[in-house]
């Protein structure tokens, strides 16, 4: 199919929810006000690690205006967590707090001020325990156990996988590089602070409106923790004011609001402050990395061995998956014949890390891409040409058994090289080039990096055989079509994608489609807005449902027009035979005919990814229906007297499979680039004296318009057989190459290596000082933890094996209906 065959797909249409957003009508969670609503606040721990001896709430209870005060004693003693293997969180801590910010009690009152005052009147008697604030601390003190479970004292997860004989491959290499990198943690910083409203009505049924990316998982957790049948709980995800992975876990504040509503018989709102968002966290893991890679003279990779240490914070969250993700995605980009990965996630007394845009893959991408740059330099190769040469082969398997379908990376590289004027500028800028004769402290540089990312995790968070995404499409006699889907629009435009795809299949306008998202009582399950899965999975389910509806309508119209259903097409809000279009039936009439023939027209669509998990333990993390690819060139100026970096241009080529709406794709790419810039240059979640150093929007630095360069997005279409109309993801992948491209451009400008993110001006000056002193001009981590990884699970490398798309996809055919 070529582009112009589509009526809706590929057009730069406004999002369906854009109109409400620009007039301020969209109701986010904190915009909900219900009659008699009470306001809740959490009292949070002031200690990083302590035993709770006792809690005295009497003074809080006595404060006028307080309607309820709860502690762990007022909740069932059930732990929860997003992953079945890490059920380690409590809505309110019972015996022990594990970080500053852990919730220990909650108050509901007639207004927020009173609730806050009451929290200050609660007295908690703590017995402080030693606080472990880094990977090194936690490993050095096995006697201080943050949790009682895991793969060792303070070790949440320890994994080791080996695919082929890496040692032999490195021995045969012309160049072996061993490098160490560190990636500091950072926060999602969504503009909207988390909020939720709970209403436990008198009929015994609970409704929770929450700013969440995963209503289905919240639904399951509420049932478990509140000891209430899931059938009596309804979770509605309100439009999310920015998520980026930060609203993907079930949270204490959601559970507590529900319980307070139950106890008070009133709706209860809870809205976090910005500081509390930093404690809720689930942001980027700080990761220390060691990477050893062998290269041939021509720049081919002979093998790679990666070790990662993740600073997990105080709870499990998605950490087991995060750990795997630091290892499993790198091989998707380049030809890496043999591969070994060892990773460990360590508990510390800090807010828990989790999935932030690019989940777990951003850090090792930084390591690999910087190392490639160093290798290219040593081998005398152009870093763009070298990457171009080693791009993985489409429709093959990687060393670690991942199936890769289409790959547009080569074209992405070509396009950004071309658009950026790479060849000319690489020669003109940089330390080695003779810059302007007059001494200017401003040095220019150009750097490149690439990446790949999954389009939806191939496995669900809890093991099951059901669809990952479901859609119900219902046609109305008016000609309108309702789409019910559990997907959550977090700004990425999932509501719009559902409307576009349905409209495309049915030949109507997106405006005719009414999307009803994310309501566990009404909508089929979608697992959530994470892992870039929504466009592909909900999209495929929507197409299936819409096609079933279309088939039913065609059958009825065919009877009426006395033609074969196969002769019919649906377009321009009509159904008819193309050659006899005058007789085409208006869509609303077609629906009536259909309803007369079949009864109510409501059809389900279901999607589950192809079952391709590698047949080894741990093979479940990494598989995806298809992978997106990105290449990025950054042009910048560094002031060598102040270390200040000024970004000038970012060119980013992104293999999107197909742009269902180029405007939305560009928006996702631009947003990813922006977030990458923040992480590369300024954002960091750091701690001092056991406390978050700067839990505020002023001191946690997020780039403004003035730090954001011109972003040039180039979309490459590969029409992937796995995606809806060939589409892949755009929401996360394009963040990845930006960070190493910046690091590599700084090296080009000044001849220094900052092997640590964020790359701050003081690190740049430090490296320049080293350079002037004739020492290696590098700033980065100097030591690695003493840690024994597990004996690796040794599996044969599947590298280069041919792989087909869609071997078996559950629910794909109509047979079972």
């Amino acid at each position, binding site marked *: 199919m070529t582009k112009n065959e589509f009526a809706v797909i590929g057009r730069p249409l406004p999002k369906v929810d854009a109109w409400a957003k620009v007039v301020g009508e969209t109701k986010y969670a904190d915009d909900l006000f219900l009659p008699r609503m009470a306001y809740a606040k959490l009292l*949070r721990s*002031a*200690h990083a690690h302590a035993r709770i001896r006792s809690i005295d709430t009497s003074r809080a209870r006595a404060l006028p205006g307080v309607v309820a005060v709860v502690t762990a004693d007022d909740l069932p003693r059930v732990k929860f967590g997003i992953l079945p293997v890490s059920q380690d969180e409590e809505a309110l801590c019972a015996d022990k707090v594990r970080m*500053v910010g852990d919730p220990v009690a909650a108050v509901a009152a007639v207004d*927020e*001020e009173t609730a*806050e005052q009451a929290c*200050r009147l609660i007295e908690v008697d703590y017995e402080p325990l030693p606080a472990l604030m880094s990977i090194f601390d936690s490993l050095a003190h096995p006697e201080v156990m943050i949790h009682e479970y895991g793969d060792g004292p303070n070790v949440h997860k320890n994994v080791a996988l080996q695919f082929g004989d890496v040692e032999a491959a490195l021995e045969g290499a012309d160049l072996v590089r061993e490098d160490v990198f560190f990636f500091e943690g950072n926060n999602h910083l969504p503009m909207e602070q988390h909020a939720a409203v709970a209403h436990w009505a008198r009929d015994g049924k609970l409704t929770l409106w929450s700013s969440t990316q995963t209503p289905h998982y919240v639904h399951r957790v509420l049932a478990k923790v509140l000891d209430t049948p899931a059938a009596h709980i309804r979770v509605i995800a309100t439009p999310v004011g920015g998520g980026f992975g930060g609203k993907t876990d079930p949270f204490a504040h959601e559970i507590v609001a529900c319980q307070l509503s139950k106890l008070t018989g009133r709706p209860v709102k809870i*809205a976090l*402050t*910005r*500081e509390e968002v930093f404690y809720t966290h689930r942001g980027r893991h700080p990761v220390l990395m060691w990477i050893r890679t062998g290269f041939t003279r021509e720049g081919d990779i002979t093998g790679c061995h990666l070790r990662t240490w993740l600073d997990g914070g105080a709870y499990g969250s998605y950490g087991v998956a995060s750990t795997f993700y630091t290892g499993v995605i790198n091989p998707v980009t380049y030809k890496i014949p043999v591969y070994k990965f060892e990773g460990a996630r360590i508990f510390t007394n800090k807010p828990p890390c989790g999935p932030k845009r690019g989940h777990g893959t951003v850090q090792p991408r930084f390591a690999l891409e910087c190392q490639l740059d160093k290798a290219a330099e040593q081998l005398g190769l152009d870093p763009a040409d070298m990457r171009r040469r080693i791009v993985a082969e489409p429709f093959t398997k990687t060393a670690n058994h991942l199936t890769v379908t289409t790959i547009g990376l080569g074209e992405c590289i070509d396009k950004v090289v071309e658009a950026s004027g790479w060849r000319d500028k690489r020669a003109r800028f940089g330390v080695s080039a003779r810059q302007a004769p*007059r*001494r*200017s*402290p*401003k040095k220019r540089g150009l750097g490149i990096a690439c990446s790949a990312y999954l389009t939806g995790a191939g496995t669900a968070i809890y093991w099951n055989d059901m669809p990952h995404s479901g859609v119900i499409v219902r046609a109305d006699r008016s000609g309108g079509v309702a789409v019910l889907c559990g997907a959550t629009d977090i700004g990425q435009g999932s509501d719009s994608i559902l409307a576009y795809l349905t409209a495309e299949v049915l030949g109507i306008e997106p405006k005719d489609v009414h999307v009803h998202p994310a309501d566990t009582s009404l909508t089929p399950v979608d697992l959530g807005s994470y892992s870039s899965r929504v466009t592909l999975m909900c999209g495929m389910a929507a197409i299936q449902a819409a096609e079933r509806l279309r088939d039913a309508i065609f059958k009825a119209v065919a009877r009426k027009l006395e033609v074969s259903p196969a002769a019919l097409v649906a377009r321009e809000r009509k159904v008819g035979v193309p050659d006899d279009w005058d007789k085409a039936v208006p869509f609303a009439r077609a629906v009536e005919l259909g309803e007369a023939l079949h009864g109510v027209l409501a059809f389900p669509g279901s999607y589950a990814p192809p079952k391709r998990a590698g047949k080894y333990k741990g093979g479940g993390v990494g598989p995806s229906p298809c992978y997106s690819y990105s290449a990025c060139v950054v042009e910048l100026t560094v*002031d060598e*007297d*102040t*270390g*200040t970096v000024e970004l000038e241009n970012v060119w980013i080529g992104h293999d999107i499979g197909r742009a269902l709406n180029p405007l939305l794709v560009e928006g996702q790419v631009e947003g990813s680039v922006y977030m990458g810039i923040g992480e590369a240059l*300024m954002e960091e979640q750091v701690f001092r*004296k*056991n*406390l*978050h*150093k*700067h*839990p*505020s929007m*002023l*001191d946690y*630095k997020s*780039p*403004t*318009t*003035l*730090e954001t360069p011109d972003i040039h997005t180039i979309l490459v279409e590969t029409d992937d057989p796995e995606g809806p109309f060939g589409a892949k993801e755009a929401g996360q992948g394009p963040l990845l190459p930006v960070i190493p491209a910046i690091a590599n451009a700084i090296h080009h400008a000044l001849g220094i290596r900052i092997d640590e993110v964020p790359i*701050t*001006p*003081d690190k740049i*000056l430090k490296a320049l000082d080293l350079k002037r002193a004739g020492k290696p001009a590098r700033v980065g981590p100097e030591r690695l933890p003493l840690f024994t990884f597990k004996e690796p699970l040794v599996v044969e490398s599947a590298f280069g094996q041919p792989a087909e798309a869609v071997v078996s996809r559950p629910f794909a055919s109509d047979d079972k209906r």
Partner: protein
Amino acid sequence: MIRLPAFTYLAPTTVDGAARLMAEHGREAMLVAGGTDLYPNMKRRQFEPKVLVGLRGIPELRGIRGSAAGGFTIGAGTTLSAVAAHRDILRDFPALATAAGLVSSPQLRNMGTIGGNVCVDTRCNYYNQSYEWRKAIGFCMKKDGDICLVAPGSSRCWAVSSSDTAPVLWALGAKLRLVGAEGERTVPMAALYQDDGIDYLAKRPDEIVADLQLPPAEGWRSAYLKLRRRGSFDFPVLGVAVAARLEDDVVRDARIVLGAVASQPRPSEKAAAALVGQRVSPELIAHVADLAAGPAKPLDNTDFSHPYRKKVTRVFVARALAAVCGLGDSGVTSEEVA
């Protein structure tokens, strides 16, 4: 939502009236102009005044009057946006327009006043935190506690003077008129401050900064450079204000004042003196920059590491001097952002 504590709000219409109200309510009361410094602090419970005396409704505090020859008088209630955009200020006192235009963000400049800016509370990243945070780490002596968390042995507070306009006004030789319940006085900028993180203002609480008086501009040139992470929002972690009077390329008069290196703006008299009578040259500038940066002793209580701030002080002084002396060719702009 983080909210304000309760207070009573009084809205006098004259400066005298405001001063009287301040005297009447004593320690319970605070002045508020734009509120852009005070309200965030109150929300974090750094201040919990029972009474606020609002200066917004006082017409005599607003506006800029005067001429290049006779000097300008800027009402303390003039917003920073108005100062930054004022045509005469832009022409005659570019450093002041620059500094006012670099304060925080456009919205805050529409609200914040220049009077509030010269009185802005000193800052420290152990102090500009919520009540709960400060309680968790253990209160420090600036509010609710009795030790210093940056310099534990210290008997004083080292919170940092973070005004953008104060060092510039000082370097420009501005004076301010203070109106108190017991009368008014006009003093040089230097007399407003003392080097203490808690009692950083050397005026009585009932004294109101009524206006700022700039001397005639005649032959003076000025520049202001600000170090901060982003081009918006961020307070200065270093401010360099330079004013000089040149005849041909010989410096006749010079003042260098550094912001955000101590609990008050810090003049570099020695460095300025080394300029006077000299012909400008890159060597002279380098020498003077060393002299000015030498005494700066930043502590680890703002953004950026303190060794870095120290290192950059020299660079910024040199660049500001080069700009003022017309040697501004080494990549200098008046809006230095790191």
